[in-house]
């Protein structure tokens, strides 16, 4: 903790006035941290192109030492992204864009290890190669792998090609017990509880984690309006914002000053990525548990 405080202090000094303008009194300082502070503020009309064209490589760091296996991220993701509720009762048909993978040790010293697993948004995504119609694509300015649901033909090639099983097929029409009602004509209608920022998928398409692309875009739009760059820490996917253990860091891997870049560098002995030998170059990093 002491250490953390030092970092905060340092950053506060470097932040100077621009930061105070931004959040008077949000002395939270701290968390959003470091990055908030290095924000550049434009004083004249910004050259929008200057940063629109600038490539971002968004990534996520998950500190497994801090993961308590509560699944808050799992549920936050389902709520944020309007993910269907399975009604088949078959485990394999449940859809979790972000899921916890558990490994259990038995015997004399039993233990459970939880590992949250969103889409890795690989640098070399096998799913894109698999898609015969180009419905899966990389948002090149952000390094986020996305699906155009309207173009997806439901062939499920990508679900097979993804070595992490992070893609899910909608076997049935999406089911939301808490929002479904019959309207006067006896048709299904919704009452609320949907996140209107996220498109609901239909039966027969594949879906997966988007790094909450709608939140990324919203933050970018906001920054543009305020004539500034997006601050590090400003974009928080639902899983990251909600994490009760303080496990996740989201940010731009291309920015060496971002919190995620710094943590990846500082912890390089403890960092791992999944199935690195496959050469997919995941952008989701893990700090291993202390064992």
């Amino acid at each position: 903790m002491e250490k953390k405080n030092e970092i905060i202090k340092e950053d506060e000094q470097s932040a100077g006035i621009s930061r105070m303008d931004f959040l008077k009194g949000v002395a939270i300082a701290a968390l959003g941290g470091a990055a908030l502070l290095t924000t550049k503020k434009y004083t004249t009309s910004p050259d929008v192109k200057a940063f629109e064209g600038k490539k971002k490589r968004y990534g996520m760091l998950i500190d497994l030492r801090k993961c308590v296996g509560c699944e808050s991220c799992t549920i936050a993701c389902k709520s944020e992204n309007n993910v269907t509720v399975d009604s088949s009762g078959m485990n394999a048909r449940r859809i979790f864009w972000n899921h916890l993978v558990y490994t259990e040790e038995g015997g004399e010293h039993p233990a459970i290890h939880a590992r949250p697993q969103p889409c890795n948004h690989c640098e070399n995504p096998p799913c894109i190669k698999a898609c015969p119609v180009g419905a899966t694509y990389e948002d090149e300015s952000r390094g986020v792998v996305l699906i155009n649901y309207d173009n997806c033909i439901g062939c499920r090639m990508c679900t097979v090609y993804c070595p992490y099983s992070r893609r899910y097929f909608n076997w049935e029409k999406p089911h939301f017990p808490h929002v479904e009602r019959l309207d006067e004509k006896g048709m299904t209608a919704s009452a609320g509880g949907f996140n209107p920022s996220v498109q609901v998928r239909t039966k027969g398409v594949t879906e997966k984690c988007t790094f909450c692309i709608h939140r990324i875009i919203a933050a970018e739009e906001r920054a543009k309006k305020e004539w500034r760059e997006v601050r590090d820490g400003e974009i928080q996917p639902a899983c990251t914002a909600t994490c009760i253990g303080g496990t996740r860091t989201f940010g731009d891997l291309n920015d060496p000053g971002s919190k995620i870049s710094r943590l990846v560098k500082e912890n390089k002995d403890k960092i791992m990525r999944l199935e690195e030998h496959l050469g997919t170059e995941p952008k989701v990093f893990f700090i291993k548990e202390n064992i």
Partner: protein
Amino acid sequence: MKKIRQTPNEASITTVSRRQFFKSAALLGGSVLLCDKLAFAQKELDAAYARGENPFADPASIIHTTCMGCHAHCDIKAKIYQGVLVKLEGSPYGPNGKLPHFHYNTHPKDEALYDGKMCLKGQSGIQVQYDPYRITKVLKRAGKRGENLWKTIEFNQAVTEICEGGVLFKDVPGEENRKVEGLRDLWALRDRQVMEEMSKDVMTLLHTPQGEEKKKAVEAFKTKFSDYKGKNYLNTLIDPDHPDFGPRNNQFVWYGGRVQYGREAFYLRWFEGGFGSINWVNHCTVCGGSQRCGHAEYAMQQNPEDGQFRNEGGGKYKVDHCYFSTDFLHTEFLMLFGHLIFEANYGPTHLAERVTEGLASGRLTLVSVDPRLSKTGSKSHKWVPIKPATDGALIWAMIRWILENERYDKKFMSNANKAAAIADKETCWSNGNYLVKYKDDGPGDFLRAKDIGAVQEGDIAKVYVAQDGKIIPVIPDDVTNAVDADMFFQGEIQSKDGKTIRVKSAWQLIKEYAFSKTFEEWASICGIETETITWLAKEFTSHGKKAAADSHRGTASNAWGTMTTFSLNTLNTLIGNIDWKGGWQKGGGSWDFKGTKDHQPYSVMAKLHPGSLKPFGIPLSKQCSVRGLGHRDTTYENSTIFAGYPAKRPWYGPSKWGVYQEAIPAGAEGYPYKLKALWLACWTTPAAANGNAQKIIEALADVNKMPLLFANDIVIGESSMYADYIFPDVSYLEELQTSKWPSSNMPHKANPLRQPTVAPVVDNCKVYGQEMPISVDAVKMAIAEKLGLPGYGPDGFGPGQNFTHYDQFYLKSAADIGVGDKPGDDVPDASDEEIEIFKKAHAHLPKSVYDYDRWREAAGEQYWRKVVTIFNRGGRFQDFEKGYDGDKMGNKWAKMVNVYSEDCERTIHPGTGKRLPGIAEYRPVMDFFGNDLLAIDEKAGYPYTFITYKVVGGANFRGTAAYYWIRETLPENYVVMHIEDAEKDGLKDGDMVKLSSVSNPEGMWDLKNGRKYPCGGKLKTTSGIRKGVIGVSYHYGHWAYGSTNVKIDGEVIPGDPRRGSGINPNGIRRMDPHVKDVPPSDPIGGQESVPTKVKVTLMTEEDLALMHKHNPAAFITKEMTKTYLGGV
């Protein structure tokens, strides 16, 4: 009978129809009002995005409120679009939502950009809000109790029938002529002055010695009130021969579930102050009753006027504190006793990060003492799989080791009063050095001035200590004369009449008790190796003040729960960690929300309650006082029904809240008197949550035992299904209430606030001419209007101050919070801009729940801007830095702490007739006669000890049923057993097994509506549980709550069996052998005991057939969850 092994096959599973739509307008799923609002909203939103706008960055699209996924009171924000709730997020304003949290003066515009932390239950709140099974109209029973046949009726009709009584169920077979007494009949004593006079006389009567004297006092009472001020008041009593039962008002009993503090205050004002009944029963004793009681013993303080030690809510010297916890953010060694900080407790949300930060940085060594390996245990450095209900023995082993090796904080121990503590840079001191007099049957009260001489002025507060072997007086709260004392002392002193009094210091008693068993003996009781205990004790005493032993409900959920928690506090006292950063804290506390301070504008409970009644009499749950710890009024020995030992039914220690498992069976039996009307309020569910759930069902289903039974629920629940009337209630996202901090594990002062975020889905009613949603608050208001209870309606708060809508109560309370605890402690006024944000954010709410002018008038013009500041932030929160003060906590206890309790030592056990100890001794799970129940049952052939626990996805108010997303991750729970035990018994994963016990040898649930099925389900084996222990979690096995069919107005509403999967294990819990309808219970705190000896057997064909017929939901999940630890 052939035993077969069966994991149910596909054919036997009731198919869930994917879309179980229903048309009944009595439930939300059938209402058309909300339909397709969102389609419109979506278009608007797309257009907004096209314009480059993000509507959710606008503070006017957000309402800050407080979660109720559990009782932790997390500050949350509801994102609203076009009047529809679309997403819930954590709020960075509150200390639960962000570490460290935002400054209170942060502008909502800036805060809107950030989301805080929120756990999975909180995220699922949206599924509670829009749960299709939510009730929207008033339901009246159209069949037998529990038959689930209903008809919808008008709100006013229901209120009239409840108030006036009559032959209410003519159409129900068997009840054609049953006449029900209404609330008007029970509201017998209405005159405040007469009630006060009677109350005073009854108090005198209680303290009159048994025998002839008491008989005479009863006669005198009868004579006086047969003609009091020209009227005969004896007919207002339950029984004039037993005036201590109190007035007939007491036969109306209130049962509360997830009530929370603002509603609680309003309830008390209504139920006690308005109706005048003493039988306010909250759910504490199946929750944290004894744990809180154990902390309350630790926190008692001296009242300097009479020298007695108390912990009470009222009076000039009020001390009202019953919770201590660890400063998780700075501690270095933390021992958790059955304490699931990552799963349960007062929310994992704020505790998790404080602890994980320590795990990652290496600051913290974490130990989990628990028979079961939880997620918390798995994250700990050490898991100590203790025998269930033997935490006390482990604690005493540690105390022994620490005393033997002199590893305690000697400086802290030497201080005998406040002045001595201050001199040593401490804020607190213990009562352990005070000298205790010996009575014939053991240690008794503290030695006082009256024992050894005439009492002069100023002597009343004196107690005595030994200083270098010499006995000297000390005044605990003395801040000028520092007194250091001997920790261990025994000796003699002459009494004033020349007798010899043996005295010992409390620490001496503790030492003697610790050494009454060898280290090995203590270790063998709790089943932990001596090396482990040595390591624990050594580590615990190796971090200075930055260590703590903490518990939640785990240590307290047995028949000796108060003492176990008290012993934990004794252990903490040895390192003197109270008030130190990283040590033991009292918590941030809250600002006074009832306006009891002189400078606060609205004293809503007292001065602003004209004509309020003050109930009296023996409560049905027979706690010895409702005034607080240290009072002994309605004890068994004082009562007019004292008849030697054992008493006919258990009596308990002091409590305001009643004994949840006791009041219904006692009222059904009529000891001391019959219950006539029962209100199951705030979704309370004794028929599912209690250890004696099966017995509660039997009582509720019997119209002769519970003549009038009505409930408030958001869904037809496990208990409300037995009611005569069910009123809908607003959800926590629709209600309004001020509150306070529930626990002490948060170092920051706060008052979370709950406010309507969207228009309630329930129907409106009209009370006092005002529209309001049907809810517990509306029912209170309507009954008040119907009966004319004092303090409601026009001028209800006093001349010129109307109480015609329930929100007026909470707005006044919010104004009190805004003003603060002392002059100058107020929140800043909202700017014009913030007022605009407030108006815009609330614009979508209907007048029934929000009206700008009504709200402003209720709060008062000069406080209104403060109230808006609070509403815009979802409460009032202390800034982060103020939580700490150098190396100490910012919000300090700064008082005495106790290791010896006169309150306990004066308690006579109603079963054995023996006095209880004053120090926190260890006992096994005992029945009413003092026998070791687990040992007896083991001999009777029940080899396993059953325990229970919460899982991270499990909620209060049984909302788990509606959490469809969570149910995907945790679809059901299991009978969890050690893998080697299972192998020994020839059982394996997935087997359908049944539990049985001495109290339920058949192992059956009987719902008294034709449904009877085995208590059990699928078996899960693991190495993560102590051998010999069986664990089954809470939250699952719903037999109502939308899981089964109900019929409303002739239409069958299909249930969704997914909501009923898993097991509710409470059916086999052990009952006390004396009364047979309540579990063995803590004689002090009243906690019901969980540990039960059970048998685990494969279900027979007959069992399985019953299961398929009456509980098909048990088979709904086809595959088992892969890991036990990862889930249930």
